[in-house]
């Protein structure tokens, strides 16, 4: 897991810088949400993926527009990486009519079904069987798409994980089970909540390949997902990928983080920042320099500011909308 992987050959310099931009977008989006939450300007609850940018960006980097994802409560990164418009995402968090869900869904339910984002999910593990169903459609209709299913280390202890993966395995479906192991559920450490070293090793219980990968290394994530994707596209069935990562922030809005140490947090923030890692690799490879990198960063930051302006300027949904959209 710790070897340094090659930069992905199929990715142009432009594409790599696009991914850098995307990762910055993810970071700033969630930093901004954090700020607005703290100021009481966003309602409800939210789960931030700051520190996990490389899993979202890397996994989605190899997908095409037809491919689908299912996401989780910690889904802003997945959403951005699958190509969502940050304006409409931010508008959703502001509960506005222009949001992805017209203000009805909020952070935990952003979806863009037409563009292959089958939705975030407030139920831990809830998206896993849904991803299996999506993959079943691909198989039955002979469509070429692959479904990538994000879930967390905590979700891997839900029955839906077991049932979903077993189904996909016996039906040999084109689906990638992508576990973002950020070491904790809400507070439960993966070390206390499972008795094994790697969640990826659970693949053996279903007779499918399991891959464990450095989740903060964008290139390692890309490589692993690419391999799984090719297997799925070629009729080779599902793969379980476990990407080890870390969430910098608390679980959700009110988290004193007593379940982990400051040292551990510092380590991940300073030694394992996925953006620092990526910058170093790209600069090392001569694909960018500090100035360009800084421009990318600032560009992303400004887009998020613009998203906030967009959201703030957007109308509230009308009360009439309360009772619409229940049935198709």
């Amino acid at each position: 897991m710790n070897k340094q992987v090659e930069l992905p050959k199929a990715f142009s310099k432009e594409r790599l810088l696009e991914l850098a931009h995307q990762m910055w977008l993810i970071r700033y989006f969630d930093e901004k949400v954090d700020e607005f939450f703290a100021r009481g300007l966003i309602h409800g609850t939210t789960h931030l993926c700051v520190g996990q940018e490389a899993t979202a960006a890397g996994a989605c980097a190899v997908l095409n527009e037809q491919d689908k994802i299912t996401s989780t409560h910690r889904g802003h990164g997945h959403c951005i990486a699958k190509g969502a418009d940050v304006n409409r995402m931010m508008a959703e968090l502001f509960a506005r009519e222009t949001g992805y869900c017209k203000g009805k869904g909020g952070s935990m339910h952003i979806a863009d079904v037409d563009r292959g984002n089958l939705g975030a999910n407030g139920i831990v593990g809830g998206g896993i069987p849904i991803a299996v169903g999506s993959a079943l459609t691909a198989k039955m209709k002979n469509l070429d798409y692959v479904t990538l299913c994000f879930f967390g280390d905590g979700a891997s202890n839900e029955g839906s994980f077991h049932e979903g993966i077993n189904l996909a395995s016996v039906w040999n479906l084109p689906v990638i089970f992508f576990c973002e192991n950020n070491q904790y559920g809400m507070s439960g450490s993966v070390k206390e909540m499972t008795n094994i070293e790697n969640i990826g090793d659970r693949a053996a219980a279903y007779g499918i390949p399991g891959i464990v990968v450095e989740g903060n290394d964008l290139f390692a994530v890309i490589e692993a997902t690419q391999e799984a994707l090719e297997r799925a596209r070629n009729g080779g069935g599902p793969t379980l990928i476990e990407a080890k990562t870390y969430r910098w922030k608390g679980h959700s809005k009110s988290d004193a983080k007593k379940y982990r140490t400051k040292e551990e947090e510092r380590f991940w923030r300073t030694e394992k920042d996925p953006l620092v890692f990526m910058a170093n690799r790209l600069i090392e490879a001569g694909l960018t320099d500090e100035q360009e990198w800084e421009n990318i960063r600032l560009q992303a930051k400004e887009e998020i500011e613009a998203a906030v302006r967009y959201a703030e300027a957007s109308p509230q949904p009308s009360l009439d909308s309360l009772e619409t959209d229940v049935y198709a």
Partner: protein
Amino acid sequence: MREITYAEAVREAMSEKMREDQDVFILGEDIGVYGGAFGVTRGMIEEFGPERVRNTPISESGIAGAAVGSALTGMRPILELQFSDFITIATDQIINQAAKIRYMYGGKGKVPMVLRTPAGSGTGAAAQHSQSLEVWMAHIPGLKVIQPSNAYDAKGLLISAIEDDNPVIFYEHKLLYGMKAEVPEGLYRVPIGQADIKREGKDVTVVATAIMVPKALQAAETLAKEGIQVEVIDPRTLVPLDEQTIISSVSKTGRLVVVHESVKRAGYGAEIASMIAESEAFDYLDAPIQRLGGKAVPIPYNPELEKHAVPQVEDIIQAVHATLNREGA
């Protein structure tokens, strides 16, 4: 017209839709060569093959989710759960996912799936295989809930359900599977949301669901001999409920008995009774509404106890007498 059983009617609805629409398929436990726990899918895998009559592992929550996911991406799955009691294992997918996806997503995406499942007691299968939990589903916005009481309705309603773009919970009653009725060949629809007056009468309205419909009709027959004219209404679909048909009938008869097999306490009968108590029919009521439902016990194994756990024809007759012996309020 030819007569076929309720089970055959359900099968025919599925088969005819599957011939017509490639997106329709069935999944469930032992629905292949075994033909399903109650034989409803018998012969279907031979016609449609194992891809479209898809035997699953014993994983109710997984297969319910697979149905949701496939519906969301363009298929029209029919999920068979072997016993409706097992909805308890699939409820997250049914009520947190299927029922809410479209709303949560702001009106995008749809989940056109049918969950078919046998409910009810009377087979000696005891407490974990005999429940009638339809009121759970009826309480959840985003679902439609259907309970056909005869073969004709079963076929027509199932076709409507398969064609509906929403998640539909379709309750079949085990004791009805073998009952025959005249059922046309070919596709026809019974609209979702339309009650059926199974027998007209002017003295008292009996609203009955599922297996209680034939029981109510039998009670009405007996009561007719005493000169009591019972109107028997079968809502057929609990959600949406055809309130108007019931209100009109009660406004005419002035008396209402509601009967279902499901436990009386907080059963769907409470919804019907309350709906009437709130409606304009209230002013026409000449006696308190009577609800009959299952006793507040798990379904016992012993056949006599089992029978007494849910309303029988005699109970309906008694309730009608009781409501008629009341002076106007």
